[in-house]
Every structure is written in structure tokens, then in C-alpha cells.
């Protein structure tokens, strides 16, 4: 009897609440529709309707859940009224749900690994990238094993050891041996990973320069929201910059008093020869950006007031990658990975890895940063023979002259 009273009072209350909610939302809808129709010309009625539509769906779901809840309650109360034991064994339900979650979850993980796992970056296209990939795979294997094993234990225990009034839990406050084991084993595994990581890290950032294979210097300067690339020109050295020299015509603030700057070339894309080390000299004009070139496993922030340097060796040409990935439109890219403002999401440049010969042809076609305007600004003689300023250079004369010779030969 009390049961019936309980149901009626609660359900009527719930119904009343729902009714008012419905009434309110529809009232709002009408109001909104009215105002939308009155003020602007845009027909927003449709969309308001759709928002209301989703709200109504949600409310309907709530009602549905409330009905199920009530039904369960009625069932349990009636069991109680009849003097039978509790209606639903919730502990059993959750235990089974955990077991189900484990099975479906494992399948989901497998699905993710195979489906989304096949949509990832292709294998590294740089020397150090291969080492990074190897270590990634090792870490992935170890963590996946631990991930699956611990989850089987977690949800398995939840399933097996669900509550039973007949059983008492096993009083097992500690076991020092076990604890030592599971302190030392992770420590050992991590030691291996740390050592590998540490050595790889050192091999990336502490390179010993090979005098016979000097890296190609390329300077990349970031600003909101674009990149500027500067090639060193014939002398192989990127010249000095001074931010105070920045003008509309000299946007990077290159100091052309420095002889190394005069032959520096600008480029719209980054073209690099395969198999040759490249030394990226990174810098930023305004805020911090991040030079991110994922195919080569290269990332380093560009920081105003500071040079950051990353050296890597590309191992695959763009054409090779197009064949490997079976995608004729494949291209290497670098883009910004550090929040830098509204254009952060679109700050990219193409990278082309080519053969040495192709590179030489390409680089010969690039214009120098120094132009007649800038010559005037820096009081340099206007329009001299392009080779002169560098040829006047003092120290690295022989070296650069030889390179120049090649360059000239190629030009012809």
C-alpha cells in the first residue's frame, strides 16, 4: 500500500517537473523564434529548432532512464514486500560489466592499433629518426604488455572477487618480497629504457662534426605566422643577424656588413640533398614557435633572442617516399607545434629532399637576400658582380672559392 503511494506521489512529481520543463523549452523556442523572425533577416528558426530538437532528445533519454529507474525500484520494492532477497545483485552486474568491458576494450585496443595504427607517420626519413623509431617500438611493446596484463588483472580481479556474503576477504596486509620484486623489476626495465634514451639523445644533440662531411647550414626564422628560410650561399656560412636592423625591406634584420651575409639566399621551400647532414639554425622574431618536421623526427622550439640548433641527415628523397607510401602527392613538411596565436594552425612550409645534383641546380636558381635597395641602405656599391663581395672575403677564401668555382660551372 505504502508502495503504491510512493510510486504515485513520486511519479506525479516527476511528471509535473517534466511538463514544466517541456512547457518552458517550448516557450523559449517560441520566444527565440519570434525574436529571430523580428530582428535580423537571417532565418535562424531552423537552427533554434534543431537545438531544441537535441534538447528534447536528451530529455526523452532522461525520461526513459527515469522510467527504467522506477521500474527497477518497483521490482526491488515488490521483492522486498514479498519477503524475497534483494532483486538485483548489483555486485554481480558490475563484475560482469567489468569483464565485458575488458573483452570489448581489448578488442577496441586491437582495432585502434591496427586501424588507426596504420594511419601514422611513415618510417623515419632521417638517420637519428631510425634510432628513435626503434626505441619507440621497444617502448611500445613493453608498455603494451604491461597495459594489457595489468588491465586483465584489474578487471579480472573485479570480476572474480565480487562481493559474496558467504566469503570473507583474505587478510593480506603486506609481503615485502613481492613488493621488492615489483619495485626492482620496473626499475630495471626503466633503466634499460633510460640508458637507451640517454645515449640516443646524446647522439642527436652532441654530434662530433666530420670535417670531410660538413653539414649544410640552413637558417629558419619564425614569425607570426610564417617561416623564412635562409641558405648560406657559396661560402657555406649563414651570416649574422641583428634584430635592430629589421626594416620593411630587411625583414630578418640581416647584417650585411658581415661578409658572410652578402651571398645568403632566400628560398620558398626547404630543399635538402639526401644523405648530407643538415644543420638547422633556428630563431624567432616575435614569439616562441616550434619547428616541427615529424617525418624526420625533428622538433625544436624557435626562441626569440636565442639560437637553437638541430642537426640531422635525411636518408630518403621525396620521390622515394612517394613510392614507399604509394602516394604520388606525398610531401615532407615542417610546421609550427607551439601555440603562437590565431594563425598557429596554418604555419607550414614544404620540404623537398632531392639528390645532390638536383640540389645544386636548385640552389643556383635562388636569389640572394641582398638586393639593390639593401645595398643602398648598407652603403654598399650597387650591382656589383655577384661573386665579388664573397670573393673579397678574407679567411675561408680557398674553401669558398673552390665551391664558387663549382657553382659557376653549374650555372653555365
Amino acid at each position, binding site marked *: 500500500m505504502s508502495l503504491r503511494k510512493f510510486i504515485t506521489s513520486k511519479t506525479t512529481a516527476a511528471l509535473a517537473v517534466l511538463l514544466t520543463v517541456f512547457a518552458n523549452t517550448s516557450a523559449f523556442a517560441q520566444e527565440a523564434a519570434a525574436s529571430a523572425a523580428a530582428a535580423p533577416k537571417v532565418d535562424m528558426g531552423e537552427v533554434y529548432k534543431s537545438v531544441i530538437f537535441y534538447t528534447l532528445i536528451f530529455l526523452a533519454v532522461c525520461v526513459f532512464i527515469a522510467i527504467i529507474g522506477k521500474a527497477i525500484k518497483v521490482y526491488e520494492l515488490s521483492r522486498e514486500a514479498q519477503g524475497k532477497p534483494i532483486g538485483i545483485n548489483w555486485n554481480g552486474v558490475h563484475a560482469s560489466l567489468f569483464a565485458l568491458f575488458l573483452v570489448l576494450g581489448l578488442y577496441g585496443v586491437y582495432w585502434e592499433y591496427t586501424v*588507426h595504427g596504420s594511419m601514422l607517420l611513415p618510417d623515419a626519413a632521417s638517420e637519428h629518426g631510425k634510432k628513435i623509431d626503434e626505441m619507440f617500438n621497444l617502448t611500445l611493446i613493453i*608498455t603494451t604488455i604491461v597495459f594489457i596484463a595489468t588491465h586483465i588483472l584489474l578487471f579480472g580481479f573485479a570480476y572474480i572477487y565480487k562481493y559474496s556474503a558467504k566469503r570473507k576477504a583474505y587478510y593480506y596486509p603486506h609481503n615485502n618480497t613481492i613488493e621488492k620484486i615489483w619495485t626492482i623489476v620496473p626499475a630495471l626495465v626503466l633503466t634499460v629504457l633510460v640508458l637507451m634514451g640517454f645515449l640516443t639523445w646524446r647522439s642527436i644533440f652532441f654530434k662530433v662534426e666530420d670535417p670531410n662531411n660538413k653539414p649544410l647550414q640552413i637558417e629558419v626564422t619564425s614569425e607570426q605566422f610564417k617561416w623564412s628560410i635562409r641558405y648560406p650561399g657559396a661560402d657555406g656560412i649563414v651570416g649574422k643577424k641583428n634584430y635592430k636592423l629589421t626594416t620593411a625591406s630587411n625583414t630578418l634584420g640581416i647584417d650585411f656588413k658581415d661578409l658572410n651575409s652578402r651571398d645568403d639566399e632566400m628560398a620558398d621551400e626547404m630543399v635538402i640533398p639526401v644523405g648530407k647532414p643538415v644543420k638547422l639554425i633556428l630563431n624567432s622574431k616575435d614569439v*616562441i614557435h616550434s619547428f616541427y618536421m615529424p617525418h624526420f623526427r625533428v*622538433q625544436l622550439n624557435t626562441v626569440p633572442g636565442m639560437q637553437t640548433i638541430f642537426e640531422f641527415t635525411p636518408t630518403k628523397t621525396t620521390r622515394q617516399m612517394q613510392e614507399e607510401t604509394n602516394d604520388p602527392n606525398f610531401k615532407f613538411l615542417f610546421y*609550427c607545434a607551439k601555440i603562437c596565436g590565431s594563425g598557429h594552425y596554418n604555419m607550414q612550409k614544404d620540404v623537398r629532399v632531392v639528390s645532390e645534383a638536383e640540389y645544386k641546380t636548385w640552389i643556383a636558381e635562388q636569389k640572394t637576400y641582398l638586393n639593390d635597395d639593401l645595398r643602398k641602405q648598407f652603403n654598399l656599391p650597387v650591382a656589383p658582380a655577384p661573386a665579388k663581395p664573397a670573393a673579397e672575403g678574407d679567411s675561408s677564401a680557398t674553401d669558398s672559392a673552390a665551391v664558387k668555382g663549382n657553382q659557376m660551372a653549374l650555372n653555365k
Partner: protein
Amino acid sequence: MSTIALHDEHNHDHADHGHHKETLISKYIFSMDHKMIAKQFLITGIIMAVIAMGLSILFRIQLAWPDQNFPFLETFLGKWAEGGRIKPDFYLALVTIHGTIMVFFVLTAGLSGTFSNLLIPLQIGARDMASPFLNMLSYWFFFMACVIMMSSFFIQTGPASGGWTVYPPLSVVAKAMPGSGMGMTLWLISMVLFVASSLMGGINYVSTILNMRTKGMDLWKMPLTIWAFFLTAILGILSFPVLVAGVVLMVFDRSFGTSFYLSDIVLGTDILPNEGGSPILWQHLFWFLGHPEVYIVIMPALGISSEVISVNSRKPIFGYHAMVYSLIGITVLSFIVWGHHMFVTGMNPLLGGVFMITTLIIAVPSAVKTFNYLATLWRGNIRFTPAMLFAIGLVSFFISGGLTGIFLGNASLDINLHDTYFVVAHFHLVMGSAAIFGMLAGVYHWFPRMFGRMMNAKLGYLHFWLTFIAAYLVFFPLHFLGLDGVPRRYYAFTEFEFMKKWLTVNVFVTWAAIMAALAQVAFLFNFFYSIFKGKKAPQNPWESNTLEWTAPVEHIHGNWPGEIPTVYRWPYDYSKPGHDVDFIPQTVPFSQTMSSNLPHDFEGNAEAEKIQQDWELANPVKENN
């Protein structure tokens, strides 16, 4: 001695309190009672969580449907979403404020503030906090911080939008983005107030735990919750001031023309006069707090789940000492790992190597904790209360998110993963979801203690399963975006050919996020409804051992009428063989549980051991039980 003295004083106090007149203001608003302050923290935290979750849904909508218009967005956001499309600047503001609110206001103040305030006095047996007035100030500073942070939505240039880490120069140079104007100023003011709040809270927690434990409550008899809150408070006290230092320097850079973080900056052709600073300095100062901060977030959650798992497995927590030592290990190590956020920021690579080593070491205590949770569940008698479900969910998230930390902590792997969606997935699992689950476990578990009523269990079940599944659906796929080189904080994936394949995943993730958000309605309804209409709570609804369940259900000033109970044993005597029920509260002396006492219970007290031996000789039958 000191404890006894305190006792007397408090008893005195208590007698006097009968004559105080409690007004509405002194009881509900400027309350100095730790239980009321805990509720204030909790409800403010919940409101902030709902706001931050709403913000995340807004930017998830943008990510899923970058080329569609949603006129209702314009209705809410006005010119920030002109034509029903969120603008890039406002997108970044959403991301920034979502992060700031979640990390600081929800998972630090909402979690630590609530449960430290509620549980420290109740679980160690104290009448209130060491300094109730400071405690009240702590809440009101937090409240002001929240209000100021939210007020930045009502200024023309919008809220701070340089990411929750507010790296300079982006956040310092007002011309770099609209959010770096007034919005950033408000962010900084809000943060200073927040740090002041958490320092007042932290100092209070530490002094209360050290000085005001009841008779018999030595450090090794404290529940793991208290250990976690204690170490969290120490972390906060030592690391938050560094953030203030950084913030003050930033205020100077922004407003008084100094150059702590700025040098060599040219905006277009506009050369700024600042010279000699370094943006890296901010990152060091920020992460010196920032990394301990993530442990400030997760440690209370781990403490809560230790307690909840033990109670509901009806088993002592496995390796109580190991749990404490691993917390201490995490506390100490967390101060020397901040550099792993900076591997590719241009910091000296030598430091990168060092920070990698310290970072991966911190995985060891974390692993120990995980294994101990599993061992606690093993051969337990598990009751799946809503709190227990959330605690199990926490363990799962802690594992999933913790393991990806091994990738990111490895400097070499971090090169390609830094600032990608892999990071987003990692910290949302290990810090976001795990800590939120810890908080929810705590709410479900201690709701009866807070409000004297029970929450509806079935709605709790629904809430758990929807949230648990949705959280995995949201964050698991995001790892793969990161592995494909998709950077975080991108307004749209439309400008890159290779990102287009992830658009469908984005739609899926957004729907999962909406499902997770709607699932919280079940919680919110349950929470607020049960405050007023929930079933009346019994004295000890979960049959728990800890002290808070010995205090009367009706809240009284001073927590216990008469004397504070004395503690005789550790808090984890569940299912002790030889005892008739499966729990023995901390207040039960060993003399009343002769049938279940174990030799090591007496901690080498020869006299007690002798008494026990005599008793066992006299009662040989009980042994067979």
C-alpha cells in the same frame, strides 16, 4: 603533551559554543567550520568543472565540424563566434581557460580543498583546522580567483589565450594576440589570488596534521588519504611560491617595461626595446610549479582511491608502508623532473638527459602504487559502490595514462611527440580523468559524511559507466593523432592534407565528449537532489574503520560531542581473521579483539604480547575459527 593540552582547550571551547548565535552568514557564507568550507570548495569546484567542461564541448564542436556554422554559438558568444563559427583567437582562449580552470580550480582547489578540509580533522580526530580563520580566507581567495578568471569572458578582448602555460612572449606582448591584453592581466591576478589561497590551505593542512592528531594517532596509523593530503600540501607550499615569483616578473614585463622574459623581439617591423631577458626563464619557473602541480592533482586522488579500494574490497590496503614511501618518493622526485616539459624548448640538451633520468625514475613509485592496488583487489570481497567503481576507473586511467608517460619522459621520443595530441591524450588520462575519477570517488564515498544523506547508487552506476566508457572513447584515439604528428591547439585540421584523414575521428571524439558531458547531468542531478532529498545516512554506511564515521551524522561544531575518540590501531583492519565482522574501527582497542590480534599488532610491546599469549593459551578454541 601538546595534544592533551589542545584537548582540554577544545573541550572548553566546545562548551562555550552552545551560546554562540549562528547566523545565516556565519554558518553558510563566512563559515570557519572545516566541514562547511569543504562543501564550499566542492560546490565551487563542481560549478567550475561544469563551466570548463562546457568550454571543452565548444572547442570540440569547432574541431569536429570546422566548416559548419552553429548559429547558437553566436547567440552565446556574440562576436567571438560571428556567423556561428568560433574565431581562432577565441578557440585558443577556450583551450586556455579550459586548462586553467580544470588544473587549478577543479583538480587542485576542488579536489584538495574539498577533501583535505573535510577529512583531515575528521580522520585524524581534531575539532577543526589549526587555523579556521585562515581556512575561511583560503576559500574566499579561491572564490575571488574564480570570479576574476570568469570575468575575463566579459571584456572586449576576451580571456587569456596563450595556453594554460602562458608562455612569454606570446602572453606578455599585448600585440601578439588579443587575449594577451586585459584578459592576461586578469589571468595573472586570478592566479596570484589562487596561489595565496592554496598556500593558506596548505599551511593549515600541514600544521593540523602535524599538531592536532588525537591520542594514539601516530603518523603510521594515519589513513593513506591523510598521508596523501599531507604530502600534497607540502608540495604546494614549496612549489606554488615559485609560480608567484614568475607571475610577478611577468606582471613587471607586461606593465612596467622590464625585460625578464623578453629580448630581441620584432613584431613585423616594430622593434621592441626589451633586451637581455629569456623566455626560457618563465618556462623553468612555471614548470618548477607546473610539474609538482600534476602530482598535487593526482596524489589526493590516489589517497582517496587507496581508502575507497581498501574499504570496498574489505581488505587492508596492500603494502601500507610501501604506499606511503612511494608517495614520499613521488613528492621528492616531482621537484626534479620539471625539465621534461622543456626537452625541445632550446634548453641545454645536457639538462634534457638529466631530466629524462629523473623523470623515468618517478615511474617506479607509480608502478608500485598500481601493483599494490591490484594486490589489494586480489582475493578481496569487492562491493561495487559508485565510489568503488570510480576508484577502479582511476586505477585503469592511471595505468593507461602513466604508461604513455614513459614515451614522453624519454627525451628522444619526446622530440617527435612534444606538443602533439599524444601529450593531450596522455595527460587527460593520467591527470585529468584519473584525478576527476578520484574526486568523484571521494564525493560518492564521503557524501553521507558531508551532507548526512546518501546519493542514489543507481544513478551513480549510470554516471560511472557512461563516463568511464566515454572518457576512453575520447582520449584513446587521440594518441594516434599525436603519433601522426598532429600538433595540439590547432584551430582546425583543414589546412593540412595529411590531417584530413583524422576529421572523422574528430567527429567521433566530439560525440564521445558530448556523451561524457551529458553523463555528468546524472551526477549533478544526483548530487543536488540528494543534498535535500537523499535517504538519511546511517552512522557508518560503508562499514569503514576510519575515525570520521564515529562522529555523529548531524554536523556539530567540534565534530565529536564530548571527548575525541582515541585511536588504537591502523585504519585497515578489514576481514581480519578471528574477528566476527569484517571491519574493526580504529577506535576499538586490542583488548576487545583478543581473538583476532596478530603478533605484529603490538609493535614489539612485550607486555601486550605477553597478555595476548596468556589469552590465547586460555582460549584455545577460538584459534580454529
